[in-house]
């Protein structure tokens, strides 16, 4: 396949060119990581709306499902790496809850790709940009959220 053809197929794969993604970032690692990505002038898609939370462990499944059923195309939770949590085990709680969230995606008829839990530390600006890019690309390939209003 020629390069142009590859680019074209990639283009037709996109079902939702401008997805809305909510990213919950923990104050101590991921939000600082996002800051670093910004101050390092790294490029990543602008589709995510970042919500700063004190710990990924405080992101109750409620918040995620609420966002998704009110029209968000994807939700990303970013926390500290396991063992690095400012509150000792908040991110472990987040991981357990993530399992419940993945199960509930089925119950609400949503694709698994719409939710992601990632560990990003304060020094990982490039990683933050990469996670954002990957997530946005994955969500772009899905149809717009069935719960989207307007």
């Amino acid at each position, binding site marked *: 396949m020629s390069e142009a053809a590859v680019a074209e197929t990639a283009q037709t794969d996109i079902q939702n060119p401008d997805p809305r993604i909510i990213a919950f970032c923990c104050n101590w690692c991921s939000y600082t990581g996002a800051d670093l990505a910004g101050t390092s002038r790294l490029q990543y898609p602008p589709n995510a709306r970042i919500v700063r939370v004190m710990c990924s462990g405080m992101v109750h*499944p409620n918040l995620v*499902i609420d966002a998704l059923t009110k029209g968000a195309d994807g939700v990303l939770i970013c926390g500290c790496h396991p063992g690095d949590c400012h509150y000792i085990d908040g991110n472990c709680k987040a991981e357990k*809850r993530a399992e*419940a969230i993945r199960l509930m995606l089925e119950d609400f008829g949503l694709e698994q790709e719409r939710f992601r839990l990632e560990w990003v530390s304060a020094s990982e600006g490039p990683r933050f940009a990469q996670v954002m890019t990957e997530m946005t690309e994955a969500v772009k390939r899905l149809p717009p959220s069935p719960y989207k209003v307007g």
Partner: protein
Amino acid sequence: MATKVAEEWLNICGGCEVSILDIGEPLLDLLPALEFVHMPVLMDHKYHGQTGEGDSHKVEIPAADVGIISGGIRNEKEKLVAQEMRAKCKILISLGSCACFGGIPAMANMWTLDELYEKVYRDSKSTEKSPNPNKDLPPLTDRVYALDEVVKVDVHIPGCPPSPDMIKEALLCLLNGKPFVLPEKSVCDECPTKREKKAAGGQISRPLQGLAFKQNAAWEETRCFMEQGQLCLGPVTKSGCAGQTTEQGEVKVPRCIKGYMPCRGCFGPVKKGSNPLVDMMGALSSIGLNPQQVADRRAMLNRYVGGHGLLKPLPAKPAPIKK
């Protein structure tokens, strides 16, 4: 002058009416203050005049001070009856979980009307295939509605069935002109069992399987049912079934817990608008149980609250784009 009461049953099994009778002796004290003007479960009262002389397109119910409706709304006739009750009653009470949240019948809201007809009249193995019935029957509404989605409701008495004490209490409150409101607390807030904030084992078991308790032992010695791996809906269910008042020295115990059964969630969500499925999955994973083991999650954790849009058919998957 006696307070006039009208009672109606809509999409319901009749258990709430039995519960009214179950008030027992205190009902005898209440009766002189009450006058039942309309109650299909007790009296033969017709909607279009007693001999059918009235307008057959209009439902007529005598005026009353207090209207009690049990059951949600499944068909157009029930909608008309509910609207007529609202028009004729000064205060409207929704009695039971079906009227308050849609109840058990609202589990049908997980499917569209067409899917339901298909299953019931053609798809089911034990049924002779036949067309949808449409003669002399009121058409079904698109889904099961809770009463307050159709008409304004003044007082909610949840429960499946509501406890007789609670009906009595609500009626007494109304007669004395006091408001009857349940506090926004969960069943766990009132439950006296011993909690250690983490599950004893990792497995979720079925009711009646492996629940450890000693009958008549002090409640503080009985371990929380959910921590024992029972699917107890206490954390996401409104309290109140234990009763408002207790006699001296008596411990307040939620009704199902008192019978050594996990809470089934019949009092509905703790706060209006919260989603018991999501909250419960969060609660299960926080105490270290595996939420994957919950069988039939959507129906199980929304058992009584399918109205108010909490149970919906899953959004249709759009067809993949042709390449």
